């Protein structure tokens, strides 16, 4: 997609379908994963990703560069995921400190740390959850996350630090030993 982006722009303003297929192919994992990690529902995540790409197709004329497309997709996917969660009430809204521990049965099944972390991230409140996803799935820095979610960088930084602290505590509790590294990564990241 990146190499031929200019060709796409100078072609049919409605974006020819073969070119659009390339754009989807290049970005589908990113958009789908934002939905999947946020909603933890395969069907809902696929539906969300499809809606995002259809919206991109309708707004293609406004795209200025590949970087703009990527930013637009992340931003749209993030906001749509938050809206979807609010509509469906899939996740009960709780404060960071009230986030529930997985049940005993879930503990039995959570044999791998990654699986456990993925699950526990999905139990975070909406904004904190999306911040963590954008930070660790998309490798975005605080400024980028703030622009994407229309938040102040300081707020993003605080929420990320609190989310990490909570995740670390819960992981320590789960493993019965200190988490892999006790240092606050969010603060370190800002240095």
């Amino acid at each position: 997609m990146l190499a031929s982006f200019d060709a796409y722009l100078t072609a049919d303003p409605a974006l020819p379908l073969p070119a659009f297929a390339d754009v989807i192919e290049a970005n589908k994992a990113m958009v789908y994963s934002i939905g999947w990690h946020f909603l933890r529902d395969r069907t809902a995540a696929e539906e969300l990703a499809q809606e995002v790409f259809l919206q991109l197709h309708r707004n293609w004329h406004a795209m200025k560069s590949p970087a703009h497309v990527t930013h637009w997709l992340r931003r749209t996917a993030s906001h749509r995921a938050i809206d979807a969660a609010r509509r469906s009430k899939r996740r009960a809204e709780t404060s960071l400190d009230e986030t529930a521990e997985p049940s005993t049965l879930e503990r039995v099944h959570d044999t791998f740390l990654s699986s456990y972390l993925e699950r526990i991230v999905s139990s975070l409140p909406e904004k904190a959850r999306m911040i963590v996803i954008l930070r660790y799935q998309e490798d975005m820095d605080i400024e980028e996350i703030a622009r994407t979610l229309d938040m102040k960088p300081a707020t993003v930084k605080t929420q990320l630090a609190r989310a990490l602290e909570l995740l670390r505590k819960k992981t320590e509790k789960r493993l019965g030993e200190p988490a892999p590294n006790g240092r606050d990564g969010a603060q370190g990241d800002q240095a």
Partner: protein
Amino acid sequence: MNDFENELRKALARREPSPDFVERVLARTAPARKPASFVFSWWRFASAAALIVVLFSAAFGYRQHIRREKGEAAKKQLMVALRIAGTELRDVQLHVKKIEKQEAVLQ
């Protein structure tokens, strides 16, 4: 970046959607192109309606033409019949007059 964050990065690695994801998105872009096909189908509807009107008009005109021809033919037949009847009548009258003259001579 510490080990815990690395674990988070691993846990939140990107995943691929279903294999037919691209096809399904492309299939859903079709309704977005509906206005063009709507115009096209509207034109098709208008053309079909115009064709039906033309066909009906032609059928009606042909029917009128056939009726007129039948009328003309009937009129001609009537004229022929009247002419024949007139000729026959004249012959009868001449015959009657001839008989009357013969009777008058005999008297």
